[in-house]
């Protein structure tokens, strides 16, 4: 779809981004030391830190991705919300306190606190780099999706813009300001999502019985790249056509045409008893080019509000064992992934003691949990708002806001954009930190003065930024939260076994940790790259071809590769028992 930007949305967006950048630079200017992030950390109040947890965690995947999945496929998108929040239980109850007690500040440092091994630093550094890059992809894809309706630029321009701005932030400001920026961003995201949910409930549900809302839509992409949409050249001028926005209810219970305001439970109960029009996408190669057809389908709300309606989980409704294992595998990765994300646990060290760390986690879980409850309403609201863009699931939440007016759309988009900026900045610093601190200083033992470290760090940040831009363009059109699912799988497979066994199994050896990280990372990465999902969504084969070409029985790796990481650690540790230290 072609989106025309409005002056108001551009102005609000510019004010928002300028304010965020200004705040970021202000706090950065106040702290000059290289250890600024943690120097600020010791004094940060637990409540601010708790909301900043939410700001850190609620990335483009949570806001844009989950809302998009719910808007297109119903309940299946909400499964990600449940899994992401459950991951915090592992982080709070199992990993956080022992990790804080070790007194270390990066994932590699914590793993290495007992052994001082270069092997561990190397594997943990590479794992941090890989997970950060995997996590960066959906953020960049989300940024590209946002820029289209907001400023009217293409996806590619959006991705490049975010990349350039973030590299500028990282190269000039650094991480010290992140806590306050994330606090403000987290608060605004939750506040405006709550306002939007209130507006959805107050609007209620309405039947759209116009005949054109049930007309199929087509996009023909010719070999020279020109597009024919619904039989006419793509555009908004006379004689041209664009895809119609979709998403409506075809029947409400008891013959109603409109419900009026509804309570939260009432909204869900009514939708469950209604019929919703969803769209089936089919791609065909023709003599004229690639033809994509979107066909409307009347789907009972009862079916949409239970698991198994999305392409990812549709096997749950059949008797396919592999589809069930695929689902369990993803839910396991989401459960174990949060505690394994290198850039998340660092926030535990920004408060002064363990009591404050616990309190800030409670605030974080409360804020994140409340937001995830809202994602279901936002997604369902978008599903029935008549604003969905069939070509991009990630745009559902901002376009839903647009159905309530330009101002709300501009605010929501600007918050989402700063969400992307914040998360990408943090990830790029984490990745360049891994290059300089872990790989160059600790593994290669390159002696560098403080200013050289900073210079190399900036170069690394620029390189990671360029990689992120390229991947953001390559993965265009994929759902952001689906991509984050992959990042969680790699993080949980590579990092979780080492982290848990180091904390709870005394016979863990340095060789065991190193081997487990490498085996978990390589096996999960290979599994993903050879899966049917990759063949279909990344290498662009048809679903049938992808199923045939796939090397693995199901697409999500966690169920196999997380236990494989544990097994590797135990076997290698037993084979390399440590000798007792001489007194």
């Amino acid at each position: 779809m072609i989106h025309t930007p409005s002056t108001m949305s551009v102005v609000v967006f510019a004010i928002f981004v300028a304010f965020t950048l200004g705040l970021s630079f202000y706090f950065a200017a106040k702290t000059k030391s290289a250890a600024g992030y943690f120097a600020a950390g010791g004094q940060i109040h637990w409540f601010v830190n708790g909301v900043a947890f939410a700001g850190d965690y609620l990335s483009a995947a949570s806001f844009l991705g989950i809302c998009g999945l719910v808007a297109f496929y119903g309940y299946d998108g909400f499964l990600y919300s449940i899994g992401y929040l459950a991951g915090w239980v592992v982080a709070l109850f199992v990993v956080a306190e022992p990790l804080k007690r070790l007194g270390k500040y990066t994932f590699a440092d914590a793993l290495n606190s007992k052994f001082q091994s270069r092997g561990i630093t190397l594997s943990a550094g590479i794992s941090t780099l890989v997970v950060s890059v995997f996590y960066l992809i959906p953020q960049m894809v989300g940024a590209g999706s946002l820029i289209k309706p907001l400023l009217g630029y293409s996806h590619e321009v959006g991705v490049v813009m975010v990349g350039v701005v973030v590299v500028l932030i990282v190269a000039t400001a650094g991480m010290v300001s992140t806590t306050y920026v994330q606090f403000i961003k987290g608060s605004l995201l939750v506040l405006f999502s709550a306002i939007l949910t209130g507006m959805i409930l107050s609007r209620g549900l309405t039947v759209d019985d116009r005949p054109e809302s049930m007309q199929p839509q087509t996009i023909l992409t010719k070999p020279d790249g020109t597009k024919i949409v619904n039989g006419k050249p793509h555009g908004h001028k006379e004689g041209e056509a664009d895809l119609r926005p979709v998403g409506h209810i075809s029947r409400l219970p008891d013959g109603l045409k409109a419900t009026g305001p509804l309570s939260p439970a009432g909204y869900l109960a009514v939708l469950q008893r209604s019929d919703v029009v969803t769209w089936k996408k089919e791609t065909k190669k023709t003599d004229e080019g690639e033809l994509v057809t979107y066909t409307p389908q009347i789907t009972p709300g009862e079916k949409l509000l239970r698991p198994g309606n999305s392409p990812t989980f549709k096997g749950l409704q059949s008797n396919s064992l592999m589809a069930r294992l695929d689902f369990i595998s993803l839910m396991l990765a989401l459960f174990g992934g949060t505690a394994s994300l290198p850039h998340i646990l660092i926030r535990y060290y920004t408060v002064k003691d363990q009591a404050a760390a616990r309190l800030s986690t409670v605030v974080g879980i409360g804020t994140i949990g409340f937001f995830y409850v809202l994602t279901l309403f936002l997604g369902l609201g978008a599903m029935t708002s008549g604003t969905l863009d069939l070509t991009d699931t990630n745009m559902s939440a901002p376009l839903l806001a647009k159905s309530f007016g330009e101002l709300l759309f501009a605010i929501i988009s600007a918050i989402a954009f700063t969400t992307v900026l914040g998360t990408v900045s943090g990830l790029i610093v984490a990745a360049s930190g891994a290059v300089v601190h872990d790989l160059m200083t600790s593994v290669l033992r390159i002696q560098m003065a403080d200013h050289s470290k900073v210079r190399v760090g900036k170069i690394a940040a620029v390189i990671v930024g360029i990689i992120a831009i390229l991947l953001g363009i390559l993965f265009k059109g994929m759902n952001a939260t689906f991509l984050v699912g992959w990042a969680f799988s790699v993080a949980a497979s590579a990092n979780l076994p080492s982290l848990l066994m180091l904390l709870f199994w005394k016979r863990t050896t340095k060789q065991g940790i190193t081997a487990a990280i490498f085996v978990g990372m390589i096996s999960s990465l290979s599994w993903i790259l050879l899966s049917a999902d990759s063949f279909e969504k990344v290498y662009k084969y048809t679903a049938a071809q992808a199923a045939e070409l796939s090397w693995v029985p199901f697409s999500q790796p966690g169920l196999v590769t997380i236990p494989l990481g544990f097994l590797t650690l135990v076997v290698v540790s037993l084979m390399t028992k440590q000798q007792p230290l001489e007194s």
Partner: protein
Amino acid sequence: MAGLDHVASHPKEVEDMVLAARNARYGMVLFLFYLLIYGAFVVISAFWPEVMAREALFGVNLAITYGFALIAIAMVLALIYTWLCRGRAAG
């Protein structure tokens, strides 16, 4: 560039290892409890998705009710954990 050197500026907390062990035990019990209800949710969704379509509370199906409950229970357990740890520390 800040954030590359990971150094603490505040003194390391002096702590009682007995309390730390107790906290870890509380954490493990609460974690296992949550694992049980999360695991049940995943297994039911995977093998008996039709059960999730049954009506549960306020006309809303089990899938949504269970999902909201998992989010709410995580918050309640986090509060209980904080309260338990704080109570012991004060004692």
